[in-house]
Structure formats: structure tokens, C-alpha cells
């Protein structure tokens, strides 16, 4: 949309013009590059999966990723134009709908890879939890900030919203998402100003919960076991294949489309898209990808830090933590630093729910960090020594 500098005049007071001049261009730019890269990479990596699944068109997934990208961008454009109140409304609506969908999952859910996470809607399978995550973060941020005013038992409501989400996630079961929203929830809670002892307590409960999860869900314990005892003789696991792909890529990669690991291993276009990209484009590209996420998250948190309104501050920080954690966990899984989780690399991995959910997440985050009168308080950012 920015084919020339005259696309939007400074004096452009139209809705889109206002949006353009108030949205943070760093965040917008990083997001746009990620979306475009995600589509391009799918054209290289997904034909192997399409052929393996016997689909008629090798570009089945790539074309769908294109469609998803348009959908995600549309959601992002729409949501990012909203004000804080609009964001809260969207969050309430999305939370209620996705929680309702998740409630029905045990009955109508589409089970794949050891978990029933998907619901079929008009030929597309959607994963409601992807939309629930950002909505939950916005809602708990709202509740924390309201609770602070003392008129609403905000903390209690936030915990109820969180625990309800966790309960439904564990029914699926989706341990990865549970960990993700717990971490993002904890971050939002802490940022909201709660005494650190509470966070420590929450951490203790989470650790106990994780231990319980390890023993309760066989696929979790087996993944952890696989991670801890990486048996070289047990054939090419995804993690081994990912390591080989990354090593085969080296510094400059094997060239676009030249990767071979995608031919052997499923999920190279989804959860292991990072490795597939590293094999074909090399380390410099991997580092570029990581840097893009780093720019997105750190710039986003920086903007959140400077916001004046507590709700906007907590919500924006929570949303960027959500994106950053998801990216970091995915990359860490690809680099075999932590056990395998069913988690996508935002925008890069193939997946409609992920793409649309990320559109929603960043749409809300961009909306909250937009420049509006009074959004960034005129008071001094911080006194010297505050961060020391």
C-alpha cells in the first residue's frame, strides 16, 4: 500500500490515512515482512507435504496460505483501526465465541495428532484457541486495570477467565497453549503491578500443574522423554530432521526449493517451518527471521512501556509477550532446546487459525500502540536511574 510516499498525505484525514499516520511503522513493517515471507516460504516447502498427502495441486497449502494471509491482513487492518473500547468489545466477543467453540470441541472436534483442537467450519478447520489467546490477554488486562480502580473485583474475574480457558485447553488437550497463555497471563498480571510474591506463587502452582500434566497426558510424557533421551538409533524424528536440515543449510543455505528434509518429514511446512527455511536459505536468513520477531516484540514492548493508560499498557505488553513467547518457543523447539510442542511460528508456519489469530493479535496490539491524543502521556518517561 505504500508504493509511494504520497499514498497518504500528512493532511489526509480519511480513516485509512489517520490509521497510517498513527500506527507504528516499525511494527507494521515487521509484520508485513513476516506475512509476505510466510507466503513465499510456503511455496517452497509445502508442495512436498501436498504431494505426500496426495493432494491434486502441489501448491494446495501455499495457495491456502495466501488466502489466509489476506484474511489475516484484513482482520489486522480492521482491528487495528479500533479504539481501546472497540478492542475490549472485540475481545469480549471473540473470547465468548471461541470459548463456546472450545466447549463443543469434545463433541464435534476434529482429532489430529493426539489432540482434538480443530473445528470444521465451511471446509476449513479452525482452532478456536488461537483466537481465544489474544482475547483472553486483552480481557485480563482490562480486568487488572479495572480491579486497580477498586470498583470491580478485577483480579478475581481475570483468574476466572484464565482458569476457564486453561480448563478447556486441557480437555483438548493442548499443553503447549496452556503453557503459553499461563506465561502471558503471568506477565500481564505482573506488569499490572501485583507484588512479586504473587507471581512466585503463581509460578509454583504452574510448576506443580506441569508436573501433573506430565503424568496425566501420555503424549506429553513421551515427548519429554524423547527430548531427554535423544536416542540416535531411533530413526529420524522431527527434531533430528530439523537439526539435520539446519546443519545442511549452513551459512547460505542450499538454495530456494533445494531442501530435502521436507521430503522426508511431515510438519516441515507447519511447526518446523523455521528448519525448512534454514535449510534452503541458511543461517543469515534464520537470523533475519529471529531479528524480525525481536524487532516486533521489543519495539512493541517499548511502545507499551510508554503508554499512559494502565489497560492499554498491560494489554499491549501482554499481546507482545504472547507473540514473542510463541515465536521463541517455536524457534527453541526447532533448535532442540526444549521438547516438541504443537506450536506455530507466527505468520511463517502454515495454518489458517494461526494466521487469522495472529492477525487478530497484532491488530489489537497495533491498535493499542497507535498514537492518539493522550495515549502517550506527556509526563517524563522515566526518571534517571529507574531502570538501573
Amino acid at each position: 500500500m505504500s508504493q509511494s510516499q504520497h499514498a497518504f498525505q500528512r493532511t489526509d484525514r480519511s480513516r485509512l490515512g489517520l490509521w497510517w499516520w498513527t500506527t507504528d511503522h516499525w511494527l507494521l513493517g515487521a509484520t508485513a515482512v513476516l506475512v509476505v515471507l510466510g507466503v513465499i516460504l510456503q511455496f517452497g516447502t509445502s508442495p512436498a507435504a501436498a504431494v505426500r498427502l496426495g493432494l491434486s495441486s502441489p501448491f494446495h497449502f501455499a495457495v491456502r496460505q495466501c488466502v489466509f494471509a489476506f484474511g489475516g491482513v484484513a482482520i489486522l487492518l480492521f482491528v487495528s483501526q479500533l479504539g481501546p473500547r472497540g478492542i475490549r468489545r472485540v475481545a469480549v466477543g471473540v473470547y465468548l465465541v471461541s470459548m463456546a467453540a472450545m466447549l463443543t470441541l469434545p463433541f464435534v472436534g476434529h482429532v489430529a495428532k493426539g489432540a482434538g483442537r480443530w473445528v470444521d467450519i465451511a471446509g476449513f478447520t479452525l482452532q478456536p484457541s488461537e483466537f481465544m489467546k489474544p482475547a483472553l490477554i486483552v480481557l485480563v488486562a482490562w480486568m487488572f486495570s479495572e480491579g486497580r480502580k477498586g470498583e470491580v473485583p478485577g483480579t478475581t474475574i481475570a483468574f476466572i477467565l484464565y482458569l476457564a480457558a486453561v480448563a478447556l485447553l486441557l480437555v483438548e488437550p493442548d499443553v503447549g497453549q496452556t503453557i503459553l497463555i499461563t506465561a502471558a497471563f503471568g506477565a500481564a498480571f505482573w506488569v499490572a503491578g501485583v507484588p512479586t510474591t504473587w507471581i512466585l506463587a503463581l509460578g509454583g502452582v504452574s510448576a506443580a500443574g506441569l508436573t501433573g500434566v506430565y503424568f496425566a497426558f501420555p503424549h506429553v510424557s513421551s515427548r519429554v522423554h524423547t527430548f531427554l533421551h535423544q536416542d540416535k538409533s531411533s530413526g529420524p524424528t522431527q527434531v533430528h530432521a530439523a537439526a539435520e536440515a539446519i546443519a545442511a543449510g549452513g551459512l547460505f543455505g542450499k538454495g530456494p526449493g533445494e531442501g530435502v528434509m521436507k521430503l522426508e518429514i511431515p510438519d516441515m511446512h507447519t511447526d518446523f517451518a523455521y528448519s525448512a527455511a534454514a535449510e534452503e536459505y541458511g543461517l543469515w536468513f534464520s537470523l533475519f527471521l529471529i531479528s524480525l520477531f525481536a524487532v516486533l516484540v521489543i519495539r512493541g514492548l517499548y511502545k507499551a512501556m510508554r503508554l499512559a493508560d494502565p489497560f492499554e499498557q498491560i494489554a499491549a505488553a501482554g499481546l507482545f509477550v504472547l507473540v514473542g513467547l510463541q515465536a521463541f518457543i517455536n524457534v527453541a523447539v526447532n533448535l532442540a532446546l526444549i521438547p516438541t510442542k504443537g506450536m506455530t511460528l507466527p505468520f511463517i508456519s502454515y495454518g489458517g487459525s494461526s494466521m487469522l489469530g495472529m492477525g487478530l493479535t497484532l491488530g489489537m496490539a497495533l491498535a493499542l500502540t497507535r498514537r492518539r491524543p493522550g495515549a502517550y502521556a506527556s509526563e517524563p518517561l522515566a526518571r534517571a536511574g529507574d531502570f538501573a
Partner: protein
Amino acid sequence: MSVAQPPFDGAGSPPATPAWRDWRAILAAIEGATSRGLAPGEVREASRVRIFFVMALFAAAFVYAGIFAAKAALLPGLEGRGGAGAPAETVRSDLVDRNGRVLAVDLIRYGLYIRPQEVYDRAATLDAVARILPGVPRARLANVLSRDKGEFYIAGDLSPEVRDQLHDLALPGLYFQDEAGRAYPLGDTAAQVIGLASRDGRGLSGAERAFDGAIRKNNGPVALSIDLRVQAALQDEVDKAAVHFGVKDAVGMVVNVRTGEILAMTSWPTFDPNHPERTPPENMVNHAAATVYEPGSVFKVFTLAEGLDTGAVNIRTVFDVCSPLVLPGQIIHDYDKGDCALPLWEVFTHSSNIGAAKMAIRVGGEAEDRYFHAFGLFNKAPSELVESARPLTVSRMSINSVATMAFGQSISVSPLALATGMSAILNGGIYRPLTLRKLGPGEAPAPGRRVIQESTSRVMLGLMRLNGTNGTGRFADDLAPGYMVGGKTGTATKLVNGHYDLGKKNLASFAAVFPTDGGFDQDRYFVLVMMDEPKALPETGGFTTGGAVSAPIAGRIVERIAPFLGQVRRTNVWDEPPKGRNKDIVDAQVLDHIQNVSGPSGPPINPVIAPISTQASATRASAKGAGGRAR
């Protein structure tokens, strides 16, 4: 909704009302505990500090991810390499000869795979690939392209140019894989010694296998001891002679006996290692290392070295060879009938089987066993070459085996083992494994172990020289005058249906050494030529003996390689006896020479007692007589 309670400490106690009585009180407690009653501005500042902390954590996390990404990409280490689809490690060092000339180099080569399920236009793909790769049968391509799944290897060893042509077609479903292309620019020169490497970059045979570890380290070229100039001369002469005499197979070797380095090694028939697929497998055999032969009279070198070194006999010890030697179930004849009383040196130059057998029996089976062991004849030659073959030996020493082994029967050794043992006799008495690795500048030869006294070695050099000037080896010396060539012939009659069928099928050998004079700290070269089953030709008088067939080949080889090896042609009284000169005088001088270099002492000999045939300056015309003695 309750109003904010007074501030509580994080771990503070609940309000006065019992908590479970009033849910409002519980809520108030939670809400109160989670905010410290800060003014809005203060909370905002606290949040900023905390967001900054989260930001710092993320910065650290992404740096951490970046570091591990770099580690995973650049230092794959031990993690799971070699699984399905892992690229083969195909880089191999160049192989060069001792002067740095290239023997084998890596080429960039590609294999073509087709995954038919990814091919859009099968007809166009078929036409395009068939046009660029005319060697691939169209039927095979069509068959592959008619499949719906799978991955098919179409062609290998594609050059970068061909690969680019295919790549530029931009056809989907065509995949390329790196291959280890190995080029041998010299073709069949030293083919068996250099050996072959597989497509996936492993050494299969020859030096490629022997030095696989060093080659795959890829630390610059790996230098062999081979001298390409010597190799070319040796191989040229051996190949020409092999064709000329219509042999079954043939072997040639040149060794620097001082250092133990193999300068040249050839085996006929040979092959082009660039096209091993067009080669019958038997042509790839390195007969110099992998085949064992019953060597015949060249073994008398070992026998005499053994006898002289024990001190039980000396070169003037006389043996009665008038009548055949009768052993249990076996009678040993001499080829050269008419000799009667021969001193040991003439047993050597006349190549008397009876004399050698009698000497071995006199010295004893125990000594023969011990010395032949020391010469390495009972074990496979220690060598980098995995092809080095185990000898065939009798399981138990008897008087028969002691007698027959003395002239090289009832034992089969590889030419490599023969050369290793002879080097020990000719280099001053140190047995050391022969090597294909070039010794570094100033690098000392392997220490080895002493197997005979230096004086014995000196006498053996003298006897070799005597045989070269006056005995069965003179055809070699004639063709390389002035290089002080000595040598010993061998004509091993082959066992045919359990009998030694005299004169039908022979192994004709010549073991030469030059120069025979000079100190043991100087380079000295051993040349071995073996012709397996040469055909009788008129020019050799119908003889297929070592003296008639192999000695001239060795002579031509020495004549060609000596200049490369820094040898200077010399002339003195017994280098080249003038025509018509009395050989007896020459013999006397030779024997004096042996004596002067401190052979084992004994009564002085009168050369007149045992005159050597006065057929001086042997020529091709007189080859019949000379060949006749070479047994």
C-alpha cells in the same frame, strides 16, 4: 462491590471477618492483596519498570536463540548426522606423486533424480532430459515418468555444465544430489596403485583406500612415494613386454631400498579408473600385492643370504652338483646339466637348484625357517595396501620343503612380499615394511629390524653384480651399461595338473638392484619384473625363462629410470668388458671385489677352477644359451 481495603502486604492476613463466611470479603482480600494501594502514577511507573524488565528478558531470549541458531547451522557437531537425506561427505584430497604431480582429483559431479509425481508436463520432461542425457535409455525415462510416486536415480557423474543445462530447463520434479566425482588424469597409469573411491566418497582400493583417513581429512594433497616418471617408464616397458609375450599377467616394481619407499608399481592388465564400469573386474587386481606366485630361483637370494649370514658356508664353499639330489619321493635336477663341483658363488650365477638345496640342508631347516620368517616370507607383506596377500606355505617344514624352498618352490608369495624381503638383503640388512607414503623432507626411514649382518648384505650385492656381469643377469646389465646393475633371474615352472611341466608355463622373473656399489647410506634401487606365462618367441630362442624374457625388460627399465633417480653412468673395467676379453679375468676381479668389501673370510679361490662360459658380451643371438641357464 467493596471499596478498596487498606493496603495489605503480599502475604498479609485476610480481614477480620472469617473468609469463608462472606465471599465479598474474600474478593476484597484478593483485590486488596494484588494492589498495593499505589497512586495511579506510581503504578504506571512500576508497570514501566516491569515491562522494561520483560523487554530485556526477550532481548536476551532472542540473542540466545540467535546464538543457538548459529551453532546448529555452523557446528552441527555429533547431533544426528548421517540420517536419511543427510548429504554425504564427499570431499577428498588430491593424490599426488612424490614430486607433486596430480594422480587423482575431486571433481564436482551431480546425480539426477526424478520424482515423477512432481512433474507437470511428462512428455516435455521426457524430451528435454533425453535430449541433454542421450546416454539414458528413453524407455527407462518413460518408465520412470509413468509412475505416480517415488524417487528415481536417473544418471550420475553429471558435470556442472550438464547439470546447469538440466537445471535451466526449470522443470519441476528434477533433483540433483552432490556426488563424489573422482578424476584420474593419468588414465591407466598406476591405476591399481592409486585405486578407486566410491561415489559417496569412500576409498575402495589402492592408495585411495590405504590413505582414506588422510584423504578425507582434506588437509591439502596427499603425497605418495610414487615417482610418476619412474612409474611411466616401468609401466611402459612392462605393458609393452606383456603384450609382446602374450602373458597372462605381469608385475613391475621399483623400490628405494634405503628408505623403503615404493617408487613405482604396476600390474598388467590394467584399466582406466575413470571408467571402472567398463572394466572387467580381474583387470582391477593389483597383482603386485594381491596375487601370490611361486617365485622360482629369485628365492636363491634369500637362501644364500641365510647361508652366508649363519657363517656355516661362504661363497667358496663347494657343492657337488654332479648328480640329481634324491629326496624322499622327489628328485631335484639342475636345468644346466654338466656342472659338477660348484662353489657357492657359482651355485648362484649358474642358478643351481641342487647346490642351493644342498646348502639349505647343510645350514638346516631351523635356520631356513628362522631367516625366511625374518625376511617376511611367511606372512603377508606389511603394507598400507589392504590388497597385500597372504603367502601360501607348507604347513610343516620337512627336508623336502627345506630343499625346494631354497630355490623358490613349494612357497608362493606376493611380489610385494618378495620386494620387501629382498630390500632387507640389499639395504644393509634392515627389514622394513615398504611404504607408498612419501617420506617427508629429512624424515628418517622406518627403523625396521636387522635380519642379516651388513657384511652379508655387501656380499649379496657383490653376488648380484657378479650375476649381472657374468651370469644369467647379463642381459639386464647389457641394456643398462654403467649403472652397476646386479640381479637374479627366476623361472618358476608352473604346476599343471599337479606336475611341474617343464618349459610349458613359466613365471619368468628378474630381481635387479642398482647401483651395487656405494655405501648403505646411499639410495639403492630394487627393480622387480615378473612375466606370468610368457609365450615362447623366436627372438628369445624359444625360451621363456627369467633371463631371456624378464632380464632385458629390467635392463631397459633401469636404462630409462636411472637418470631420473640421479644415477650417473660409470665406466670401469668390469662395467663393460671389451669384446673378446677373457671373462675369467673379469670373474677374478669381481670376486676380488666381493672379498675387498669384507665378505665372510675363507680360502682364496682360483677363478680358473670354475670358469664361467666365455660367451662374453651376450647378445640376443646367444640368448638361447643364457636363457638355458636361467633356472
